[in-house]
Structure formats: C-alpha cells, structure tokens
C-alpha cells in the first residue's frame, strides 16, 4: 500500500523538523491550532498531576480514623481544589485542546475558523487557572467544595477570599470555554473539505460539535450563579441569603443547570475518542454510526433537562422529583445504545491490543459500571439514601476517571504519534495500563461499599469503630498510591517517548480519517491537497473497493 500523504513536505518526522515551531516566542504568539492544542493539552496534563497529588493527600488523610495528616482547614481547601482542578483545569482544557488540534486535520482545513480567538481562549484559561492557584498564597484557597453551596459561601460564613477567587477564576475560564465552543462549531460548519458532508465527519468531531452546543447553553447558568455569589460577597446583595429572603435553592438550580450538562460536556470527548480508537484497532467500521450520532444528539438535548437529580434530597415536591427521575432514566437509553454499539464493533473484528485499545476496552466496562450506579441515583428513593455519600464519589469517579480519563489516555496513545511524530512506548504503556486498572478499581470500587455503610463525602475524618470504614479506607488509600504512580508513569512515557520514541510516519495505525493523510507531525498548513471524501473513512476508501452490503444483514454504508 502506498503512503497516502497529501502534503508536499514529506520529510517531517518530529516537531523539531518544523522550523516554524522553534523557540518559545513562536509558541507564545502562536495562532496555529496545533500549537494551541498542544499547549492546552500540556497544561491540562500538568494540572492532572497536581490534582492527583491533592487526591493523594486526601487519601492519606483518610487512611486511618481520626487522622491528623493535614488540618481540617487544609483538607477542605484540598478537596475543593482537587475537584475544581480536575473539572475545569484538566478536563476542559484537554478536551478543548484535543478538539482544536484534531478538528482542522479531520476536516481537511488549514486551521480553525477563528485562529486568534483560539489563542485568546487558551491564554484566558491559563490566566484563570493560575489566578485560582494563587489563592493558596493570597489569603486561602476556596474551601466549599467544587459546587460551593450558599449560604456557606456567603461572606458571613466564609470570610476568607477563597470563594471570591474561585468565582472570578471560573468566570475567566468560562469565557475561554465558550469562545472555543463557538470556534469548534463554526469551523465544522464552514471549513469542511469538498465531499465531507456533516454526516461524514469523524464521530469524535460530531460529538465535539454537540459538546460545543452544550457548552454554549450550559455555561450561562454557571456564569449567572457566579455573578450572583460575587455580588453577594462583594456588593452585599442578597441572592442566596435566606435571612433577607434570598434562596439557597436558587444557587443549586443555577449551578446544576450548568453542572449536569457539564458532566456530559466532559464525557463526550471520551466517547468520541473510543469511537475512533475501537474501530481502527478492530479493523472494522464502527457499528451503527447513525445511531451513535443520533444518540449523541438525544443525550445533548436530554442532558439539559435532568439537573434537579442533583437536588433530590432538598425537599422538593414529589411531582417535580418524578419528572426529573423520568428524564434521568430516559437519558440512560441513548447512553446504553453506545455501549452496545462499541461491543458490536468489537464483535467479529480482528483486535490488536495496543495500549490504546487496552484503555478503550477497560473504558467500556468501567463506564458501564459508572453508568449503572448513575441509573441507581435516578431512582429517587435510592438517591435519598445514597446521595452525598461515598457511593456518589465512586459513581462519578467511575464515569470520569474509569470512563473519561481512560478514554482520553486511549486517545493519547492513538494520536500522540500524529502530534509528535513518535510512538509512545508500548512496553511502558502496558505497565501503565495494568497499574491504572488495578489502582483505579482498587481505589474506587470499595468506595461503593463505604457509601452503603453510611460514610458521607467531604469529611476530613471519621470515627473509630465504624464497622468496615477503617479497613476499606485503608485499602482504597493503598491502591490510590498505585493509581497516582500510574499517572506519573504515563507522564514519564510522554516525556521519554518525545525524545526516544520510534518514528511513527504518517499513518502508523493504518487508520482511516484525514488527520492520517499528512505527515506526523503535520506541517503548519496541514495539507497541500486532499483526497476525495465519499464516506467517513476516506483513507479506507482509497485502499478498498466500494463498500458492499454484507450479505444477509441489512446495513448502512458510512
């Protein structure tokens, strides 16, 4: 098979070969989507490591009952910063970074629709993130949890500036997110290669476009809440002060109106990444592409209508609760459809278990477990028992760590060669994988049991003598060391392979989408020409006869 490389600059093997990327100045002033994408992802990974260390402190503090490893005041700041960092400074930048990097390549464009807006969004994100970390030195980090419920966050109860820093930081970061979301949508709508209709863009991109619509409609809820808490704290307004007629529940509605779509914003890129990885390493087209796409749209709409399920224990009336229980169960259907389709893609395939595929496989089971506990929470009385316990902590770590992060890591092993020109080490990768699986499941599976045994979340410590609490916490904490070590092993792989990895070439995986039709890494202008696009798999089409329907089973060509 001849190399299908649609650029004149065929001698590029590593980032070093691209002289436009030499020197710090070229990066700081860049409006090239690839450089901005790399900066987003790199920054996100650094915050991942920082937040993982914060988590380790949490687990050490909880290792034994009545521990005093850190003070209660430090602990409350640490768990708040852990959550806030993972959601806003790890999840969002990595998913936005991967998209701005991949989108123009996947659609055969030279750059995003708004390159300067792209750069602006990255730098305002970085500024916002640094502003929040400055708070540790600036009077105290926020300490009210990543969702900061008033009245606790009113000045009367938390007079340190932590919450103020938190609100300001998230407003800034939010501006960047909305700007990039707009960029992603307009790029997809206007810059696609000839022949690439919207239903032929890679599923990763389809999901990221829906994701971007979610960002546009969900962030305003957060912005409204942040503005109000800032006004309460700085201008003495009364939005959330019950003594003046304000409403603590108003915050919860506004925040979760954002917060629920936010978790779908976070997971969609994971779904997108594995929807690219699994077919390639099974050498088989994704099963039910139309249903994968349609289910994403359904989830997008439904996710805006389930937010009260975070408020089931607040004493709202049964009818309201039931409506949201219904929508929350409904959203499980399109989500489940995706799992069946991934399994069907693997069925009958010829599976290469590269590290990328290993992480994608673990993702399918772990995400399913997280999804099932999520459905349990949709059943209101079960939520009444288990909300705000370690059962919730287990649930969201299964979907966000065992789910999203595993999927992103899969994507990293898949796309790292394209970004840097070198392969990640498969040897280190296999160690990374197994340590992650053992570390993750060991740390978090037992937390389900802790929740069932009554342990609440966000507690600095717990009493001696609670049956099972000490043993399970100890087990979880020991495994958390393995998990955190696996992240540092991953970081080592990323750095080591950057200098010593095998040269990848344009298409090391024999993959099918347009990003593989140029050098690794791509030249600044990405492509000089483009292949014909007649399906979702342009490169597969170039090396195969026109697709025929499989005998005996009705199917739909891509």
């Amino acid at each position, binding site marked *: 098979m001849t190399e299908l490389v649609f650029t004149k600059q065929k001698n590029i093997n590593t980032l070093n070969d691209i002289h436009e990327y030499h020197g710090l100045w070229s990066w700081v002033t860049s409006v090239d989507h690839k450089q901005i994408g790399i900066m987003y992802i790199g920054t996100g990974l650094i915050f991942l490591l920082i937040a993982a260390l914060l988590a380790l402190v949490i687990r050490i503090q909880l290792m034994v009952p009545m521990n005093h490893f850190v003070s209660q005041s430090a602990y409350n700041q640490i768990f708040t910063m852990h959550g806030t960092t993972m959601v806003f400074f790890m999840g969002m930048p990595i998913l936005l970074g991967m998209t701005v990097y991949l989108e123009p390549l996947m659609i055969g464009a030279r750059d995003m*629709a*708004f390159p300067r*807006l792209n750069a602006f969004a990255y730098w305002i994100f970085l500024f916002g993130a640094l502003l929040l970390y400055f708070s540790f030195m600036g009077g105290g980090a926020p300490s009210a949890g990543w969702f900061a419920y008033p009245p606790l966050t009113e000045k009367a109860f938390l007079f340190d500036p932590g919450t103020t820093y938190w609100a300001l930081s998230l407003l800034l970061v939010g501006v960047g997110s*909305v700007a990039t*979301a*707009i*960029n992603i*949508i*307009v790029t997809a*709508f*206007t810059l696609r290669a000839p022949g690439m209709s919207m239903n032929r863009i890679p599923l990763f991109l389809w999901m990221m476009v829906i994701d971007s619509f979610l960002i*546009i*409609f969900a*962030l*305003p*809820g957060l*912005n*409204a*809440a942040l*503005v*109000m808490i800032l*006004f309460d704290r700085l*201008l*003495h*307004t*009364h*939005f959330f002060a019950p003594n*003046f*007629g*304000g*409403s603590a529940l*108003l915050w919860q509605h*506004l925040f979760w*109106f954002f917060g629920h779509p936010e978790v779908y914003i976070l997971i969609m890129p994971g779904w997108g990444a594995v929807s690219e990885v699994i077919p390639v390493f099974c050498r088989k087209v994704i099963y039910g592409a139309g249903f994968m796409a349609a289910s994403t749209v359904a989830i997008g709409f439904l996710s805006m209508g389930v937010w009260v399920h975070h408020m089931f224990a607040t004493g709202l009336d049964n009818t309201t609760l039931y409506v949201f229980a219904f929508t929350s169960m409904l959203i499980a259907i399109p989500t489940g459809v995706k799992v069946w389709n991934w399994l069907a893609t693997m069925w009958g395939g010829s599976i290469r278990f590269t590290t990328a595929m290993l992480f994608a496989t673990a993702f399918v089971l772990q995400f399913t477990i997280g999804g099932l506990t999520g459905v349990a929470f949709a059943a209101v009385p079960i939520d009444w028992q288990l909300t705000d316990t370690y059962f919730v902590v287990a649930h969201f770590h299964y979907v966000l760590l065992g789910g999203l992060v595993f999927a992103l890591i899969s994507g990293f092993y898949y796309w790292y060669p394209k970004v840097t020109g070198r392969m990640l080490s498969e040897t280190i990768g296999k160690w990374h994988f197994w340590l992650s699986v053992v570390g993750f499941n060991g740390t978090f599976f037992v937390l389900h049991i802790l929740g069932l045994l009554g342990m609440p979340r966000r507690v600095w410590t717990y009493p001696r003598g609670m049956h099972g609490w000490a043993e399970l916490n100890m087990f979880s904490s020991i495994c958390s060391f393995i998990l955190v070590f696996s992240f540092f092993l991953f970081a080592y792989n990323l750095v080591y392979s950057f200098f010593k990895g095998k040269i990848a070439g344009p298409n090391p995986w024999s993959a099918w989408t347009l990003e593989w039709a140029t050098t690794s890494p791509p030249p600044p202008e990405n492509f000089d020409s483009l292949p014909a696009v007649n399906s979702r798999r342009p490169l597969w089409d170039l090396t195969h006869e026109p697709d025929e329907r499989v005998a005996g089973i009705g199917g739909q060509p891509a």
Partner: protein
Amino acid sequence: MSKALQGMLLFIASEATFFLMLVMSYVNFHKVIHFSAESYLDPLKTGMFSIALFASSFTMWCAENSFKKQNRGWLRFWLAITIILGTIFIAGQGIEYADLIEHHITISRDLFGTTFFTLTGFHGLHVIIGLLLLLSLLGLCTFGRKIEPTSGGMHCIAYYWHFVDVVWVFIFSVVYLWRYV
C-alpha cells in the same frame, strides 16, 4: 452565512441564556413578594428612554442598508444616530439609577435592589459594549480603508445591537410592566 455571523449568533445564544437565567431569578423572587420600592419605578419615563433604544434598532437597520448600497456618507450618518440614541438610553438609565439611590434604594438594600440593579445593570453593560462596538464601526467607516468595515463585522455588530434591544423588551416587560398585569 459568513463565519463571523455564525459565530456572533452562537455568542448571542449564549448571552440570551445568561439573561434568561437572570430574568428567571428576578421572577423567582418577585412572584411572591411585592416590594414597596417597586413603586419608585416609572414606566413612562423609562419607556421614553426605551423608545430611544428601540428607535436605534431601526436606525441600525438603515445603517445596514446604507452599507449594502455602499453609501459611506449615509452609513456614517445612521451609525452616528444609532450611537446617539443608545447613549440617550444609557443616560436615562443613569438618571434612573441616581434617582433610586437618592431614595436609598441600592443594590444591597433588599432583594428588589439586588435583582433590579443586577438585571438592568448587566443589560446596561451590554449596551455600553455595543456602543463601543458601534463607535469602532464608525471609526472604521470614517478613517478606514475602502474594505473596512467588512461585511462580516458590520452584520455581526448589527445583530448584537438588535439582540441587546430584544433583551430590553423582555426586561422592560418583566420589571416595569408586569405588576400592572
């Protein structure tokens, strides 16, 4: 539709959702209680200033037409009128705010002040930003090259201005007219 216009429409969608959140919060607090401070609001006076804002949408539309016809002189004229009308609106808001504050109705006094000043204040902020955008359009018109302002820029800012106007229709109805219903 141009890239710029698509981008602006998406941005407007986001801002519209933000205002929806603020309006719903306003309604949430006002549907049960009627504040005495509300009687200090004067729908007629504010209505007059509102007419200036609504008229500025019309003059903006005239400006867009002049742009389409490549008539720079008229374009400058209509932009200038739009800016003046918008400024009259802001001035009216400022007078109203000063009046309320003189009567000790401030943002921190009670929930009326809190919600009123937040909702109308954010709208006013968006109007001021719009005025700055219009001024930059006028500047490009007057001192810029032949291709400036671009069609993308012109239509984007026009859409933003109309959006700000439409938001005021809602806010005015909810804040000033609702209690008469």
